[in-house]
Every structure is written in structure tokens, then in C-alpha cells.
């Protein structure tokens, strides 16, 4: 089971490094090792203080913050004509969405903690409804911003 997480770990590690490079506006060879050391220290701290659940729960804060950032980008967008085509290249969007919607690997572990077994289907439908609305908002978040 844990081996299946390795490709995701590598992809997300690379993504963290790319985001830092984007923020710093230059590529540095020390970003990768620095991120690795930081993550190692963070893992040890989470293990020592037993704050794994709390750390994961703070992920919802980053999602809300990101949505607020998109709203800010819309409000402060420069004036001028902006056009988005009705259709275009979807061959990058579909794999990204496939990854975005993936909850199969942890859905069972999370949902069995809920004792209301009759509500499981409703919970899944609500989860995907929230996911669909959020992703649609995020995708449309860049429209008319530049």
C-alpha cells in the first residue's frame, strides 16, 4: 500500500520546489535539499507531538485562503478586453482533474470512522458536489484576470 504513495510523494515534492522557485523568481540547487530537510524535521515534530490529524486538518485553511486569493485576483484584475474561448485543448485538463478528484485511496479509511453507514452514499455525493463546485470556481478563477 505505502509503495503506491511514492510516485505521488515525488510529484508533490517537485511541486513544492517549483512553487518556491516561482516565488523566488530563480532556480537554486539548494531548494531541493532545503525542502527535504524541512520536511524531515516536520515529520519528526509531527511524530513526537502526535499532531498528525491536526496538521492535516489545517489543509482546509489553505484551500479557503487560495479561493480568497482567486477572488482578490478577480477584483484587482486590470481593465481591458479579455476573451476566453468556448472550447480548447482539454488534454492537460482531464489528467489534472483525474488527479484532483482522487479520493479512492483514502476514502475507505476516512468514511468508516462515521458510524452512520446508511449515510455513506449521501456523504460521497455531497463530497463530490462540493468538489465539483470548488474545482469549477477554481478553473474559472483565472478568467478575465489578465
Amino acid at each position: 500500500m505505502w509503495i503506491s504513495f511514492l510516485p505521488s510523494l515525488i510529484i508533490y515534492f517537485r511541486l513544492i520546489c517549483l512553487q518556491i522557485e516561482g516565488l523566488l523568481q530563480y532556480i537554486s540547487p539548494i531548494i531541493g535539499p532545503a525542502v527535504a530537510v524541512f520536511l524531515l524535521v516536520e515529520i519528526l515534530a509531527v511524530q513526537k507531538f502526535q499532531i498528525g490529524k491536526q496538521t492535516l486538518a489545517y489543509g482546509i485553511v489553505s484551500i479557503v485562503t487560495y479561493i480568497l486569493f482567486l477572488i482578490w485576483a478577480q477584483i484587482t484584475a486590470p481593465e481591458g478586453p479579455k476573451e476566453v474561448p468556448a472550447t480548447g485543448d482539454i488534454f492537460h485538463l482531464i489528467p489534472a482533474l483525474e488527479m484532483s478528484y482522487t479520493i479512492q485511496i483514502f476514502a475507505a479509511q476516512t468514511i468508516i470512522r462515521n458510524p452512520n453507514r446508511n449515510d455513506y452514499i449521501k456523504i460521497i455525493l455531497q463530497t463530490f458536489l462540493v468538489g465539483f463546485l470548488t474545482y469549477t470556481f477554481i478553473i474559472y478563477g483565472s478568467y478575465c484576470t489578465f
Partner: protein
Amino acid sequence: MVESITNIFTVLGLVNGMMGGTILVLPIIGLASGYISSLLGCFIMGIISCYTVYIIVLHIGKS
């Protein structure tokens, strides 16, 4: 003993796990995909993923 969670926190937990690093690239990819294609793609991929999780949940019910 495993701590039980309510329906709303189950949904929030699943949504929290669902939203990953891809949210950073979706706006840019969506810009190139067009507004109708993006909406359709989002809907269709959501249905497919939802159905696969639905099958997993059915198996949980039987176990």
C-alpha cells in the same frame, strides 16, 4: 478505540484530502481549455470518480 466523526466532518475530511497541489495549476489549464470544455470536463471526471468511490463504499457495506 477509533474516534467516530459526524457526517459534516466526514465530508470536510474527504474534501480536504481531495484538494491537493493541482488546484494551483487548474486555473492556467482551464484558461487554455475554454469555458464550456472546462465545465464539461469537470462534470464528467467528477461523475467517473464519484462512481468509483461509490463502488468502494458498496464493498465497505458488505464487509
